[in-house]
């Protein structure tokens, strides 16, 4: 349970990295991939928003109470 927040953050960072790398590409498949990553990011945000209202406090507490990754 302590890894949920970390995994979400890593997925968001990964999405940002990919979108940054594909932002200025003009090839068709790269533009398609950019759109797909953008939609995946929206879905990820939606899931994250559904998790946090109910279980968010417990997930944050578990993340903080992990002494090896409390930053």
């Amino acid at each position, binding site marked *: *349970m302590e890894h949920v927040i970390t995994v979400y953050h890593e997925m968001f960072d990964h999405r940002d990295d990919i979108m940054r790398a594909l932002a200025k590409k003009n090839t068709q498949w790269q533009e398609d991939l950019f759109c797909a990553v953008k939609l995946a990011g929206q879905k990820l945000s939606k899931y994250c928003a559904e998790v946090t209202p109910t*279980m*968010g406090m*417990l*997930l944050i507490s*578990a993340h*903080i*109470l992990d*002494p*090896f990754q409390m930053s």
Partner: protein
Amino acid sequence: MDINPEHETSCTTQYTDAFLKYVENEYCAKHRRVPVDEAENVQCRNPVPSAMASASRQLSFAPYDLSGDDEEYLTPTNVPETQAGRSDHATRLSTSARLYLNSLPEPPKNWAHMIPNLNDYHSDRMEISSTLWIPDITNWWRQQEETHSKYADLSNVVRDIFSIIQNGVEVESSFSLGRDVIGWRQSKTAGDTLHEKVVVRQFTGASHGILAGKDPESDTTNHENDSEMNKAGEERKLYRLAKVHDFLKMWQGSQNLSATQKESRAQTRQLTAIRCISDTAAIVKAFWSFFHLDGAAAFELSERSPLPPALSPKDIPGG
């Protein structure tokens, strides 16, 4: 919990504030709130009760019970604070939480010490995987409690939070539940339909199968989790659907063929009545004057016959 990613402060700061508020509301307030009739009986001098010591008190008062109403903890002023020991414990808990949040993360163990042959590609994989270091959080907190460190008060919070089953998170459990409901071949099921199905299933599960009826054998919800039975049922439905589809296709083809034959028959009848001479009366009415008599031409045709001319008796030898 109000975590706003667009806020000026970082998410870490917001998480920290939310955690402190959570500890104060859920744990510190409980220690400040003690029922009046129980405060006379409780003889608590140890601010950090162990599991054995607190077991007897939890019969009537659970200090870390999360199942209570949250409004109780948000209004601690309505409850008398009668015991100094519990108030001290709440203060220590809050202080411990703040100290823990201001401390540095625990450094991981030395990988080179744990895995001396990590770069040796010829070493046994199982040996490497058995030496992989996974941080044991609960063990770390148990050590804090046993050594009575400055974070020992937080170990009860850790015990409560990390004892939650991981697949109890609602959305993740709903993902697997949705796959059980919708199946791989039902990609056209709308979101509203899936939502209704999931709600009915959860209600049925929560009410211990009241909706399913009395007979467990006829209870279809008992079998819905069995993916193999669902797959077999889908196969049967598809087979029946395929048979019906084939029959409908054949019936439609025969209907089309019959309609085409009728149409062509009507056309033939119409053509026969208008253009063709098919009855004997018309033949009788035909006169010879309609024919062009040219007998010479007919003989010319016979003279131009491709057959060889007849032989005379002179041409025959000996004749």
